[in-house]
C-alpha cells in the first residue's frame, strides 16, 4: 500500500513505480527459474470485498485476496497479459513516454499478445494497478478523456523536453488540458486560496470570462462530467500539497451530486487505489434546496433519476446529514435543475450572487 504524502515528489514516485514493476518481474522470474508455475496474489476486487472505510472516507478493498497462477489453464492467458502489461508499462515509465488505454490495446498486438477487446486490456491494467497499488497514470497509461484547469498556478514540467520549464495556468483563456504532462508536473507557486470544480464546459468558460479566478482568488477545474482519475488525483494534490479548499459545483440532480461525491469519496471501481479522493472537498451546489430557494427553472425527475436517488440514499458515502437532507428534498420536490438555470436571472447572476453565497455557506 502506498504511503500517503502531502508534498509532491513526482520523481520519487516514478522511481517507486519502476521498482514495483521490476520487483514483480523478479518475483515471477524466480518462480519460473526454480521450476514453479509462477503466481501472483492481489486483493480481490469483487463486490463483496469492497467496503466503505469511514476512517479513510473512501471505498477500500477488504482482506479477501485472489491468486492468479500460470498453472491454471483459465488464468495463464490473463497472467501472461499481466506480465506483458507490467513489462510494457515499465518500458513506458522508464522511457518517460505516455500511452493511452487504446494505445495499450494496440501495442499488445506487436508482441503477439492480442487482447480480445479494449475491455479485456482495461481489466488487465486494473489488475496491474491492484497488484502494485498505484494507479495507471503512475505508469504512464492515461485514459482518452481530458478535462481542463485555469487559474493562477505556476507549474514546472517534469516530462522530457519540457523538464524545468514553467507555465502559469492562466496563460490560455480556454484553460489548460489536464493531461499526462500537467499531471506529472510540480507546483511552483500560486496566489489562489481555493479550488472551484465545475461540471460543465459552458459554465467553466463563463467563469473565466467573468474573472471568477480573480474575483474569488480561485483555481478553476473543469471536470467535464464525471471527473477522470487524473483530474481527481490532481485536485487531491491541489488540496493536499497547496492546502487549498475545494468547492464543487454540479447540476442539481442525482448525477451531478454523484460527480461531486466521487471526487470527495472515490468510486467503488477504484477501491484498489488511494490518492484519488479529496475527502475535504465540498459539494457547493446546485442543491435541491437551492432549486427551492432560488426558484430555479426545473425539469421533472424521471424514473431513473428517482431510482438513482433511492440507491444513493442507502450508499454509505451519503450518510452525512447534508446529503441525506438534499436527497430527501429532491424526492420531495421531484424536480431537477441544471447549472445554466441561473441564466434566467441574467448571465452574471450566478457569479455575482449565487457563487459568493454558496462559497460562504459551504466554507
Amino acid at each position, binding site marked *: 500500500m502506498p504511503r500517503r504524502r502531502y508534498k509532491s515528489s513526482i520523481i520519487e514516485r516514478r522511481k517507486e513505480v519502476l521498482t514495483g514493476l521490476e520487483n*514483480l518481474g523478479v518475483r*515471477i*522470474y524466480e518462480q519460473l527459474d526454480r*521450476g514453479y508455475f509462477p503466481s501472483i496474489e492481489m486483493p480481490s476486487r469483487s463486490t463483496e470485498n469492497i467496503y466503505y472505510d469511514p476512517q479513510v472516507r473512501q471505498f477500500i478493498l477488504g482482506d479477501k485476496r485472489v491468486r492468479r497462477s*500460470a498453472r491454471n489453464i483459465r488464468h495463464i*492467458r490473463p497472467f*501472461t497479459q499481466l*506480465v506483458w502489461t507490467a*513489462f510494457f508499462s515499465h518500458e513506458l515509465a522508464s522511457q518517460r513516454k505516455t500511452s493511452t488505454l487504446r494505445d495499450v490495446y494496440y501495442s499488445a498486438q506487436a508482441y503477439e*499478445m492480442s487482447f480480445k477487446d479494449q475491455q479485456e486490456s482495461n481489466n488487465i491494467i486494473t489488475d496491474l494497478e491492484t497488484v502494485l497499488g498505484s494507479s495507471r497514470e503512475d505508469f504512464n497509461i492515461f485514459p482518452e478523456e481530458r478535462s481542463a484547469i485555469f487559474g493562477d498556478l505556476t507549474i514546472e514540467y517534469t516530462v522530457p523536453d519540457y523538464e524545468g520549464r514553467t507555465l502559469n495556468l492562466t496563460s490560455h483563456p480556454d484553460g489548460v488540458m489536464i493531461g499526462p504532462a500537467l499531471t506529472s508536473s510540480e507546483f511552483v507557486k500560486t496566489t489562489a486560496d481555493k479550488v472551484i470544480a465545475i461540471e460543465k464546459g459552458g459554465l467553466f468558460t463563463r467563469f473565466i470570462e467573468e474573472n471568477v479566478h480573480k474575483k474569488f482568488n480561485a483555481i478553476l477545474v473543469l471536470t467535464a462530467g464525471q471527473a477522470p482519475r487524473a483530474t481527481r488525483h490532481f485536485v487531491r494534490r491541489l488540496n493536499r500539497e497547496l492546502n487549498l479548499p475545494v468547492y464543487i459545483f454540479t447540476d442539481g440532480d442525482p448525477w451531478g451530486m454523484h460527480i461531486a461525491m466521487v471526487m470527495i469519496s472515490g468510486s467503488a471501481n477504484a477501491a484498489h487505489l488511494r490518492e484519488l479522493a479529496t475527502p475535504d472537498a465540498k459539494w457547493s451546489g446546485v442543491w435541491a434546496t437551492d432549486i427551492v430557494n432560488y426558484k430555479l427553472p426545473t425539469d421533472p425527475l424521471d424514473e431513473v433519476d428517482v431510482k438513482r436517488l433511492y440507491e444513493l440514499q442507502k450508499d454509505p458515502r451519503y450518510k452525512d446529514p447534508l446529503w441525506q437532507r438534499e436527497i430527501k428534498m429532491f424526492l420531495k420536490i421531484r424536480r431537477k435543475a441544471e447549472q445554466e438555470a441561473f441564466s434566467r436571472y441574467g448571465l452574471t447572476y450566478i457569479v455575482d450572487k449565487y457563487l459568493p453565497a454558496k462559497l460562504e455557506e459551504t466554507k
Partner: protein
Amino acid sequence: MVQTTFEEISAADFFYRNRDIAGFTNPSRAIFAAVRELVENSLDAAESLKMPPDIYVRLSFEGEAGKESQIYRLRVEDNGIGVPPRHIPSAFGQVLFGSKYKLKQQRGTFGLGGKMAILYGQITTHQPACIISSTGASKAYMYKLMIDIQRNRPLILDRKVRINKEQWRGTIVEFCLEGDYFRAMPKILEYFKQTAMVNPYANLTFVDPKGRLYKFTSVTKEMPDPPKETLPHPYGVDVELLQRLIQVTPYKNMLEFLRHHFHRVGEITARKFLEFSNISPSKNPKKLSHGEIVRLMRMLKRFREFLPPDAGCLSPVGEELLRVGILKELKPEFVAVHQRKPSTYAGHPFIIEVGIAYGGEIPKKGSFLIYRFANRIPLLYDEASDVSVKVINSMNWRRYKVTPDMPIAVSVHICSTKVPYKTVGKEFIADRPEVKREVANGLREVARRLQRFLTRREHVDRERKRLGIFSKYLPKIAQFSAQLAGKEKQPDIKKLLRSVEKFAA
C-alpha cells in the same frame, strides 16, 4: 401372385407383361436393374466356390433408341463356378428354371438372376444374348440364344466349343438393351460403391459408355461362409409352397412328409403336431384336398411347439468384413460395427448387422448418410420408407452426443432366407416389430461406441488445446519477466512444459 399364375401363362410371358415389378420400369431403372442382376449372379457364382469374386462390367453405346433412351451393350464377366454346358440354354433362356423347393439366403430379387435382364434386352432390341461359360474344364462353350416368350423355352441360334487351354473358369454374358445410362449413372455408381462396401473381398471393375473406368479393389481375402440351403420352417409356409412340396415329395405318409420337408421338425415334433391338428400320421400327403391343405397351413402356424428356426443357414457379412468394407469405401475416421444374434420373424431366421462411421471423408450433409443392405446387396430406392430409416429417425441421438450435422454414415444389413420386403419392388424393408427391435438394439450398441470415441477424442482435443495454451504462454511469461527483472538469461521453462505434458498423456 407370381406363382399362382405360373400354370396359366408361361413365366417368361408373365414377366414380359409385368416387367415393372422386376424393376424394369423405365429406361433408367432398367439399365440399373440389368447391371445389378448380372453382378449379383456373378457374385453368387464366385462365392459358391469360396473364391473372391472378380467381376468386370462394361456398358458400351450402340445407338440411339428413342428420345430419352439409347441402346447399350452390356457385358459382364466373372470368375465364378461356371455353368455346365448342357444347362447353359435353360439357365439363361428359360425363366424360373432351376427353382428349388428349398430355402436359401440369396441375392437376386426374384432368384431370376440375369434372365429377366436378358428377356428385357430381347424385348427392347430383338437381338440374341451371347453366353460364354466354362467350369474350368478343358472346354469353354459359347451360346447365342433368344427366349421363346410364349413357350418359355430357349432358342439356340448358335453354339461354339472352344479349347480352354488356360483352364479359364467363369461366365461371360453379353447382350443389348435399351436404357438411359446418364440418368441411371449416379445409382449405378452408388450401387458399385455400396456393393464393394459389403463385399470387400470382391474386385469390381466397371467401364461406362464414355470409357470411364471405375475400379473397386478388394482389400481382403477373407470371405463369409456361403449360405446353406435349408428347409422351410413350418411357421413360414404358405399354401402354394405346401402344394409344390406335395407335388414333388417321394414320401407316402404325413409323418415322413413333415420330417423331411420342414426345418427343425423331427419325429417327436411331427407326431405332436399331427396329434394337435388331428391328422393321421399315415395319411398320404398327395391325397390331401385343397381344403385340407389350407387347414394344414393354418395349423402349422398355430402350433406353438415347433423349435425356432436355426440361423446356421444364414451368411451375414460378419463384423470384421463389414468394418473393412466401410473403411475401404467411406474412409471414415472412426467405425463401429455390430452383429446382432440371430432372430426370427414369422418362421424366417434373420440377422441384423449395423455399422456406424464417423468423420474422415464422410461429408457433412445436415443428416446421416444411410446405407441399407439386404442379403449383401445394396438397397438404393425408397429410402424414406425403410424400417432402418424409421428407427434412425426415432432414436434420441443426442443421448449419444450425436447431432445430425455431424459427418456420420449408418449402415444396416439384414440377411434372411426371406427378407421382409414391404412391396414387390423389393427396395425397402417392412417395419416388422422383430426386425425393428433388432435394428434399434444394434444401432444403440454402435451409437454407444461412437459416443465413447467422441468423448475420448474430445478429451484428447481438450488436452492438446491445453498443452497448446501452456506452450504458447509460458515462453512469453519467461520472456517478459526476464526483461522486466533485467535478466540476461531467460528462465528454463522446459521442465514446466514437460509437467503439463504428463497430464496430457
